């Protein structure tokens, strides 16, 4: 085995107590997840915004925030909730997630999620049914590749349905609207995107929670 002489106190530094503190840890994770959610919302929203003719319009920055101001915070909050909920449910159910718990896998998952969004925005499909079916298949494939847990699937479906319902309500009340709705007031691929997003955020949340577990275990070990 690779062994190395390392020095524990200098290695851990002063953060050990912060990380092991449960609430601060929760807070840190929540903040990180929120940031990731906001970032993804901004970027993916750009994908959805149809391409303008512009070359370098002077108001590039404003086009990043072309959606309403409340969208990124909502997405951030939702992703923070989901990211914290997943490890929590794992713990409650007592079946910890075992599959590929590495950052490289998480990154792959995020990349596939962006890819699904890309496909929904950029690829021209023959009809909406095909688009939605393809995206659904991709989302389930995402779940199978990176999650494979029943709890994850169930939570994903539930949250996706809830989010779709919420979007329906928002559109119904005229907060915003889709250019070409094909499923009541919204796009039919929206649930798939939501599902994939939930899986992705859950993956990130679990990976973050893994750190906490490790640190706590080590601390116990140390004590």
């Amino acid at each position, binding site marked *: *085995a*690779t*062994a*190395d*002489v*390392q*020095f*524990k*106190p*200098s290695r851990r530094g002063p953060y050990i107590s912060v990380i092991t503190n449960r609430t601060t840890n929760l807070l840190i994770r929540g903040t990180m997840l929120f940031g990731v959610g906001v970032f993804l919302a901004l*970027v*993916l929203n*750009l*994908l959805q*915004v149809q*391409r*303008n*003719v*512009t*070359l*370098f*319009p*002077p*108001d*590039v920055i*404003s*086009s*990043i925030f072309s959606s309403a101001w409340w969208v990124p915070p909502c997405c951030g909050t939702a992703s923070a909730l989901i990211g914290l909920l997943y490890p929590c449910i794992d713990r409650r159910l007592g079946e910890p997630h075992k599959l590929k718990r*590495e*950052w*490289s896998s*998480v*990154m*792959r998952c*995020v*990349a*596939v999620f*962006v*890819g699904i969004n*890309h*496909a929904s925005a*950029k*690829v*021209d*499909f*023959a009809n909406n049914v*095909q688009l939605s079916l*393809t995206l659904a*298949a991709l989302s389930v*494939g995402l779940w199978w590749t990176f999650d494979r847990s029943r709890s994850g699937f169930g939570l994903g479906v539930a949250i996706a349905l809830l989010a779709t319902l919420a979007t329906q309500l928002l559109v119904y009340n005229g907060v915003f609207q889709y250019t070409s709705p094909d499923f009541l007031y919204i796009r039919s691929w929206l649930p798939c995107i939501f599902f994939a997003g939930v899986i992705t955020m859950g993956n990130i949340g679990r990976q973050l929670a893994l750190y906490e577990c490790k640190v706590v275990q080590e601390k116990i070990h140390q004590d």
Partner: protein
Amino acid sequence: MTVRERLRQNISAAFYRHGLLCASYPVPIILFTSVSILTCCYPLLKLPLPGTGPVEFTTGAKDYSVPSHEPQGDLGERPDWYQGPPVAYIQQVLVKAAVSPWDSSLVPVDVFRSPLGRVFSLLEEIRNHVYTDRSLETLCLQVTELLPGLRRMQSILPEHGCLLVSPGNYWQNRRDLFDSDPDILKTVHQHEPKGIHTSATLKDLLFGVPGKNTGVSLYSRKRVVTYTITIALSSYDARFVASLRARLKQLHPSVNCTLREDHMVHVHFKEEIGIAELIPLVTTYIILFAYIYFSTRKIDMVKSKWGLALAAVVTVLSSLLMSVGLCTLFGLTPTLNGGSIFPYLVVVIGLENVLVLTKSVVSTPVDLEVKLRIAQGLSSESWSIMKNMATELVIILIGYFTLVPAIQEFCLFAVVGLVSDFFLQMFFFTTVLSIDIRRMELADLNRRLPAEAGMPPPPKPGPLRPREAPPPPRPSPHTITLQAPAFRNLRLPKRLRVVYFLARTRLAQRIIMVGTVIWIGILVYTDPAGLRTYLAAQVSEQSPLGEAGLPPHLGVAPVFPGGDPTSTLSVLPAPEPTPLPENQSQGHGASRPGGAPLTSPQISWGSEDEEVWRRLSFRYWPSLFSYYNITLAKRYISILPVIPVTLHLNPQEAIEMRHPQDTQHAPRSSAKTTDLQTDLTLYKVAALGLFAGVVLVLLLFCLYRVLCPRNYGQNGVQHGRRRRGDLPCDEYGYSPPVSEISPLLLRGHSMDIECLASDGMLLASCCLAGQIRVWDAQTGDCLTVIPNNGLRRSSSSGCWEHRDGWDSLTPTCEPDYNEPPLRRRVTPSRPTLFGDQPDLTPLIDTNFGELPPSHTTVGFGFDFGGLVEKAYKEHEASPTMHFTAPTPPVTPAPPQRRRSLGDPPVAPPERINVSPGEWDSSVWSLELRGNLIAAGRSSGKLELWDAVEGTLRCCNEDGSSGITALAFLNNRIVAARLNGSLDFFTVDINKPLGLLQYRGPPGRASLPSSPCYSSEDVISCQLTRSVQCAHQKPITVLRAAAGRVVTGSQDHTVRVYRLEDSCCLFTLQGHSGGITAIYIDQTMVLASGGQDGAICLWDVLTGSRVSHVYGHRGDVTSLVCTNSCVISSGLDDLICIWDRSTGIKLYSIQQEVGCGSSLGVISDSLLVTGGHGCVSFWDLNYGDLLQTVYLGQNSEGQHVRQLLVLDNAAIVCDFGSELSLVYVPSVLEKLD
């Protein structure tokens, strides 16, 4: 056996064979894969390079017709984009206007005010031009409103009408606004962006020529104003355009104009990627890189982590390229935006297989042959690799049947990519892996030996300590395990590597240099302080020939008038050597050179005016059209030949058009009355420059200090970070963690300890009083006490708390002459055999001997050699020696000892000839091997003591010169003497060799298993060979390891002897001072340090010098090598850590005064140094202080002068009269 099983076996066997193949012929296979990659990528050459530059196509203007939409095969040279009508036809009217003849009564503003004013009449002319029934309104490109974000340009750019752009737009094409504008320049420049701009600015847009060519400037020396009127036409009417051209030419003839008018240029613009699309793309790439990073981080336990990571990335990337190439070859041109699907392809293909392969291969048994390891690793993962691959292929095939073209294309690429990736993994990566593993094995060979030595020692055999059971193995507090040999390189500190890379290549300095040059260039270019215009003003002001058109920075002397004493412009060379006549320089005194001849501006037309738009940014047209939400991406525009217009205005006209403020403006810019202001500006500029310079110098200095740890020239100046270690025992940076371990203090010596020797199990120490004590290195128990000149042996237990030496004896103690008869027989002349009395004489005696032993090791003691000997002689003569030796009641002479001394009639030690001088001789060197202590005395006597029994086993007095250094290896003792001779002794045990018990594990670094001499054996020590003149001068250092004896001497040479036959192999010359430190270990690493502060590394096999570095000011006092670095300490109390292979100093640690030489290496990454009453542990890789252990409560004043690292990772340090046994802190944990 099911089909699945059989399949699995077959696959595994195939992979096994493949692995063997790859590992056997690495080079041909890598060549083959490279060739196949290149072959598959060859079709990529045909693909157009990605780029957004416009493409041009020129046709004749005469027979122009709008190209049809259908591609026509006959026109071969026609590009495929030249179809359909263009977005717009661009007609430009290039106006060059000048006021001529130039009058001295004119002010600089006149240069452009009236020429610009003429644009309105021209515009009027163009707008109202009618040919038959066609006017411009019907033909021009009608634009709607500007993009919402461009509200601020609303007043300037045309809206809801013809796209007609001219400088008149600044004033809404209204003459009255222009006339009432007090400051034209301000109006023009108020829309200019600050800083560097690559895109087209508003000034460029409206003027249609590059900003510096417009001539709209107060300091223009050409006094010609150039601008264009740009008209965008939606349809092309040749006759209308021709009539407009004729009309304008007729109105404003250009005399010497020979512009070609028969060519139309069609410019096609590629699709540009906007920020809105760039951000998701960049995000996907960031995710991709994060993925690659996290993946390759998992590659571990290989020789070159970076190399393998690179190979993995190369595998994936080249498989993608191969896939694109193959698809192109079979006629599938990629229509997708390659850049955007690329990350997804990488993610789909993935690096997982590569990682799995690596992991599987490195987890095979290390002792196997390389190709077997590769084959085994491959075959064990073959099934999962195949399974994954099949799954991915199936998924992609499903995707292919979605029948969405984009997805189908993606899937096709992915399939080909997957297959080529598999191919590359199997051939390229596997082979690279095999090469890597082989390199690792090679590196392994060199290191295996010391690595094994680092393993925890097996239980000791019993006979070592016959009288007491071996203590229960101490619950080892340390878990230091050396890393397995091959992985050490991976643990090199990255930070240091980066820093040294930077330092080696002087990268930081070069970057800073280039950056400074660029910065200065930008400064000059963007001209933030107005320096350029100021210079121009100065020049034009000083020069009577203001329009001479000389660049100001050239400062050609003849242009300047004679010396200008008031000029503060030091940038310009002194205009002294002017050949101009005196009267011209006289004119300089006036506010404006009145009498100087003025040349009228000449308007000339050249070929560069033909296509004036070429000099603009290539984004000029796209940005113009993009303001109206018209994209030029994938479309083209046709540019019609330019219409030249020449305007000559007379001065009267210019004066009439003046705005009242222009005249106020004018003198300010050119008159001398503003000297004060300009001077102030100059001072400001100078101050700014000075400040910037100071800041830059400081920044450079800081960067240099941060990034360049190599101390060029000086070694006293420390790296900033390291300097924190100045006082390793004090609070600094972070407080050193409180030591949880209390060192074991071994008390017993009455005076300072001079010699220390250990063989891992036992520890022998000798103090100034000449008393030798033997301690158990594990428990710290004192086993034996050998007093200075007696054969007394004390109790072996529990003496480390109470002093059983002379302290416990009162001076009134009666001498006891009841010695054993044997003893008397042996030493009949000396009744004072057990000199244990508190007599001061031994102290005085050994005080003379004190200096040489302590300094012989550090190398400058030999100057005292003669003095010491003289002192001894004097002392010999002293008759006051009166030893009374009370026999301690606890130690009646045991029969054992009697036997050991009395029995062997053959043994030479029977003749222990005790001369008075001998008793006074002090121990100068001490060695301990397998419970035999070899002590070299100043009298030249070599004594062998039993460490456990405390008895003298034999004694050799062949030499008379003091033994300065001893080496005890196997059964040979090498003694270096003060007179430069080298004696080789053989320790013989008259007992069959087969019965020799070998005890102990192989030593840590230099100790082979040494035989255990049991107390029953008769030991004789015979001089086998004496090299009389080994060195010209006294031998200062003696080290033995790996069958070699290395001596270093004051005569600047190092000699290497073979231990078996005492044959001198090499004389190594290279130092320019006496040798003061030598290190040699089992792996034949030889390092030497001298009084010149140099450290040489030698190849023991060839005798050649490997590297030579100067490290210290003053002597090098000790040297230790690890596998990767050399650690040296010098008289300057500096501990330097050098990279062993490159000879680069990694860092240095400033020690406290007097503690410089005490250092030891516990493992490859743990260094221990002594300080003021403490020892400090350092991480060798990073140079971080790990912990400081204080040796005593109130022992701050004491230095740790010697430090010995034992096998069991304990360290012993000499601490005044006490020894301290410190176990390596338990907090040092093992990291997997």
